[in-house]
């Protein structure tokens, strides 16, 4: 791969610079299938135009768990969009939109574990797309909330049917949203933060 020389690199716009006082960052991961609205949600709340970062991963040949030196391997580049919200002069929040069906993300140590929590974005036309990612978050103990994006032609299930279909316990919030609207996306993030806060309160008093 070629490095861009410094004069061809487009850095942050003047208004996208963080202040020197920025001391630490936290992250939230937004997961969901293709076309469910991850990039839209990141973009609607981000103070910067969404950017894309990528990572290269290799996949070993099918069915050969041992003797990994000998089988064919393919390298895969996975990309995710992200945005940024300055919380205070010291603290910055980053939002990462990761395609949910990709098992790759879960091998990225710290991507989910280091996140404050996750938002699972759901399109009721393809509910089953979210099953695997929800299971993986459960297995890893990553706290999450579910946001149902309101597409015009999508089936409208009553909330309790949706909760039953997703087999989610009562305490996990499920909210409707329109990822195109900043206030709606912000409300989803607030729902996640309140949920995390309630977990923190519960474990502090335990």
């Amino acid at each position: 791969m070629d490095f861009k020389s410094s004069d061809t690199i487009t850095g942050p716009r003047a208004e996208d610079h963080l202040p020197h006082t920025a001391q630490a960052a936290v992250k939230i991961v937004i997961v969901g299938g293709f076309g469910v609205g991850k990039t839209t949600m990141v973009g609607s709340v981000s103070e910067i135009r969404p950017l894309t970062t990528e990572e290269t991963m290799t996949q070993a040949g099918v069915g050969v768990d041992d003797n990994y030196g000998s089988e064919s391997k393919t390298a895969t580049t996975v990309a995710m969009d992200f945005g940024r919200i300055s919380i205070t002069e010291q603290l910055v929040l980053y939002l990462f939109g990761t395609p949910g069906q990709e098992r790759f993300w879960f091998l990225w140590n710290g991507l989910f574990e280091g996140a404050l929590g996750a938002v699972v974005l759901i399109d009721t036309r393809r509910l089953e797309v979210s099953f695997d990612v929800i299971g993986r978050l459960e297995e890893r103990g990553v706290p999450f909330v579910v946001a149902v994006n309101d597409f015009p032609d999508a089936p409208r299930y009553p909330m309790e049917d949706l909760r039953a279909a997703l087999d989610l316990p009562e305490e996990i919030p499920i909210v409707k949203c329109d990822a195109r609207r900043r206030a709606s996306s912000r409300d989803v993030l607030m729902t996640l933060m309140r949920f995390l806060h309630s977990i923190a309160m519960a474990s502090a008093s335990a």
Partner: protein
Amino acid sequence: MTPPQRRRRFPKEPPEHSPEQIPDPAPVPAIREGQGETNQPGRLYILTGQVEDGDRAPLDLVTLIVASDDAPPPTAQPEQSALLQLCRTPLSVAELSAYLDLPFSVVTVLLTELLAAELVQARAPIVRSELPDRSLLEAVMHGLQKL
């Protein structure tokens, strides 16, 4: 109409990653979001953290990087100069990766060198811990409310 039905899973220990699983950096098809959502079985390995020298700096996507000086030293490599110029104000590793158009793991290699040479400083992220800090969560909520 009945929706499809999922079954709940429960937390389990993360799988062990043995250190010998070093992948060949074979360059093959770039799969962007939406095209790569195959469900092939087989093991996956991420390149991050599995370099042979084994001592890459522990950098997160949201570690904030800031250059120590305003101008890169004349001895800096071109890619190092580019990176140093970008982080004259703090920038996350993810943003550096995006602006440089380089994979995250490549950026961490560059940054490891720059950190060793003390040309940049890293400001570690706050990660979720067993007992999340309530005041941190409250600060984030307060910040979101202002949006």
